[in-house]
């Protein structure tokens, strides 16, 4: 295995902390190498994951059947009400549609579905074929928006037009159309007639004149939006409870347990928290420049990061001393309950080694710190979509000897898991069988998971998950362990 060489083109996307050349700079943000078996998906995937949890919107995939079929109800994003997001709709383009165009079919599909399901908005995801047969998806969306009175928004997510990150951007553009729908004046926007906008009219009466400075927006005091929070296994509800206790209003979450009307109200919040920064920072920046809503980057994974995030919010509202006092009380109460529970896990896990491969680098930072809390060190870390700064940070917080990878593949992951003798891999469904095949424990930290891992209680759940897998007695039967015993 040691003899396994990296593909030449991949050499600048992998390094070992402490052993890299002085002038080494990681190459990242590149399209995946052809033939390399990247764990990444595509532009469509990026858009789909960000918008997916909006539960009262229709999500229709314009293209052949696959893209919709593979993304049907695959995530653990929960809704407290409607569940339209858990259904799969597609124009299911056929050969004749590819020849003659799919616009008419899309139009008919939207007409049928909007009448049947009464969504608050519709997102139309363009897939690869649509990008090359030249369907004017925007025109169809505009037309159907006028006809049905709800925003019908084209999401330009053709799979080949960039990486997953470009899909995030397309999703943010689509979200912006909802957030900013008060600005709409013309007919080219596809956001429907005035009748559809009554919902938040009252709240934003003072801003009806257009791009108002934030002071005119009728901001709600001590209120936040949580961006990049997808309510996996109800995580947003855990966070909302913390903020309720702190006396901070959560106006909307993007997009966990999402509702179109809530998203429209987002501009009335005083502060944006950005969690999954890779996916949604562009929207936060836009809201900052257009509405003057500042944003802070946070993470709700791991004790330190949750506490830091809550204090950061309290700090942003420091003119209200009660909030800080309540935050302190909340954090110490939670920690008092949490720390003894973690201790038993830490006792068993101390000295174990972990590998992390996740979509966004920001999550990796939190996981490294969280793992340290239960006695584990990270010897291999990487992400699908990290940027240079992310990898700099990753390098800083990892120990010497840790391998850092960008857009890796099964061959590399397995090579380093074995070389570094890891006890645990944290990743998603595609990484899971790699770990198990090698006799390595696994923790699912992707969007398919059904167990909440955010917040203080999420930390306990995380420790329990890791412990259950790492400490399982079955690994002694793994060939890897058997050969170690022999040696």
């Amino acid at each position, binding site marked *: 295995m040691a003899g396994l060489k990296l593909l030449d083109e991949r050499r600048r996307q992998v390094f070992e902390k402490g052993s890299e050349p002085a002038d080494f700079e990681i190459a990242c943000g590149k399209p*995946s190498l052809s033939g390399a078996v990247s764990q990444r998906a595509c532009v469509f995937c990026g858009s789909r994951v960000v918008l997916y949890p909006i539960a009262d919107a229709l999500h229709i995939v314009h293209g052949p*059947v696959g893209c919709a079929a593979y993304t049907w109800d695959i995530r653990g994003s929960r809704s407290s009400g409607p569940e339209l997001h858990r259904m799969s709709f597609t*124009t299911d383009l*056929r050969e004749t549609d590819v020849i003659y165009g799919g616009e008419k079919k899309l139009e008919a599909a939207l007409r049928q579905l909007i009448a049947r399901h009464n969504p608050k908005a519709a997102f139309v995801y363009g897939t690869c074929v649509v990008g090359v047969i030249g369907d004017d998806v925007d025109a169809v969306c505009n037309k159907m928006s006028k006809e049905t009175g709800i925003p019908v928004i084209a999401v330009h997510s053709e799979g080949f037009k960039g990486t997953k990150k470009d899909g995030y951007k397309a999703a943010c553009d689509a979200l912006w159309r909802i957030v900013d729908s008060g600005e709409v004046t013309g007919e080219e926007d596809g956001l429907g007639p005035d009748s559809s906008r009554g919902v938040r009219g009252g709240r934003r009466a003072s801003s009806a004149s257009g791009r108002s400075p934030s002071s005119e927006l009728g901001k709600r005091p001590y209120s936040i939006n949580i961006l990049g929070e997808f309510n996996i296994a109800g995580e947003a509800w855990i966070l909302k409870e913390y903020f309720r206790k702190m006396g901070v209003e959560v106006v909307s979450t993007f997009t966990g347990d999402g509702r179109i009307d809530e998203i429209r109200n987002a501009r009335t919040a005083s502060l944006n928290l950005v969690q999954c920064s890779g996916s949604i920072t562009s929207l936060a920046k836009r809201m900052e420049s257009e509405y003057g809503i500042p944003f802070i980057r946070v993470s709700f994974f791991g004790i330190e990061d949750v506490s830091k995030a809550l204090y950061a919010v309290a700090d942003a509202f420091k003119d209200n001393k009660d909030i800080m006092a309540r935050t302190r009380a909340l954090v110490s109460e939670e920690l008092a309950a949490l720390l003894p529970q973690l201790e038993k896990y830490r006792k068993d896990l101390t000295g174990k080694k972990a590998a992390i491969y996740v979509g966004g680098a920001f999550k990796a930072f939190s996981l490294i710190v969280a793992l340290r809390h239960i006695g584990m060190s990270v010897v291999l870390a990487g992400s699908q979509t990290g940027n240079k700064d992310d990898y700099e940070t990753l390098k800083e917080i990892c120990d010497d000897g840790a391998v850092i990878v960008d857009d890796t593949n099964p061959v590399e992951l397995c090579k380093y898991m*074995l070389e570094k003798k890891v006890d645990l891999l944290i990743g998603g469904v595609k990484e899971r069988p790699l770990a198990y095949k090698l006799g390595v424990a696994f923790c699912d930290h992707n969007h398919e998971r059904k167990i909440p891992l955010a917040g203080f209680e999420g930390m306990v759940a995380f420790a329990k998950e890791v412990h259950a897998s790492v400490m399982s007695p079955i690994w002694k039967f793994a*060939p890897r362990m058997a050969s170690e015993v022999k040696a």
Partner: protein
Amino acid sequence: MNLKSTSKTKFTTEPGREVTQDACRLCSPLGACLAFKGVEGAVTILHGSQGCATYIRRYLISHFREPIDVASTSFTEETAVFGGKSNLLAGLDNVSRQYSPQLIGVATTCLSETIGDDVAAVLRDRVPANPEETCKVLNVSTPSYCGSHADGFYRAVRSLVTSLTEPAHETFNRRLNVFPGMASPADLRWLKRVLKDFGLEATVLPDYSDTLDGGLWSSYERIPSGGTTLEAIRAMGSSECSLEFGHALNPLDSAAVWLEENRGVKRLLTGAPLGVAASDLFFHRLQALTGCDFPAELQAERGRLIDAYADGHKYVSGKRAAVYGEADLVATLALFLLEIGVIPVLCAAGGPVNAFRDVMKGLVPDLEERGMEIMSDADFDHIEQATARIGVDFMIGNSKGYKAAKRLGVPLVRVGFPIHDRFGAARNRLMGYEGTQRLFDDLVNTLLSHNQEASGLGYSYM
């Protein structure tokens, strides 16, 4: 535009069917990825966007719970504009370097088909970067806008045969080709054992019984061991006959048809051996080929199955079922259900299958009298509506019918692909008396469990 669909399957949309809601099929490249997993030393590369490979891997992995590496030519905007040739060549070289495969199967996607990439021409002219490369490269056309994953599967199997199987100089008795279709790894293992027990030298294609259901590794296996060998595929022309399991598969996508027409190997088409009658037929065929007596062990298995039918018949007799999924599986299951006294009141093929009603009518001539409705190109919305209208006691098919079954309040017997919400899908058995036994037990227990749960009486004796 490079539209190469050679079959007459309907690839158009009927009026009023502009939407597919909760599809009961996957796209054709998935089937090709599955089929190529059954060849020794093979790696699939999907010619299209990175997402196709990743989504398909995720989908297959969730069913088989095994590492499944599928490469992609990772199209970018430039690739889509200028064609995928350079990406394909680079991808092939990288797969070759990283995996040292014996075979690379190139499957197209909607994107590469639509822009008109001529993959065959690229492969014909290709000079590998590594002059020592010995791997065979072949291609299959699997545009996602044509047919379903089942079509992609059959097409990939056919492409293996058309690209590899050599003209034979002689025919060997007791040498047999078997095309089992989308069988589970456990069924493939059973099939191989039975064929061997009958003294047959059989080539089962594809055979992912080890690659998709194997043991743990001590070091990373770039390509898991197992699969039909290239040598065996090359020699398929020398077999006495080909046994192909299926009822609805398009002859133009059939590997056995190609072998019959081009290599003179007689094709025997038969349904998969599920149920007493279908298993009897299968074993009689094997007996005819070998002259073997019916093994006592099989006789005993058959006896136990019929005994189980007797013990369990009252639980299932007269029950009504909705069957859905790949057309061939639906037909096979329908025949089994009829055999045990269940009426398959709805038989729904998820893919657009040409003349599926005629196929079913051929198998069950009195299907109208039996009250059987036949649907093709059905999504779960159609299936749910029809099931609600017709009324059933249970549904049987892949795990994606769970939501419909739950809403309808009827139990679901999970069979086929995918099974994403239960454990052990790779080890599900359907074939032979023993496989039928497992399915029958499962079916009866599902109905018993449903009745038990539904009753407030808490019977512990059913």
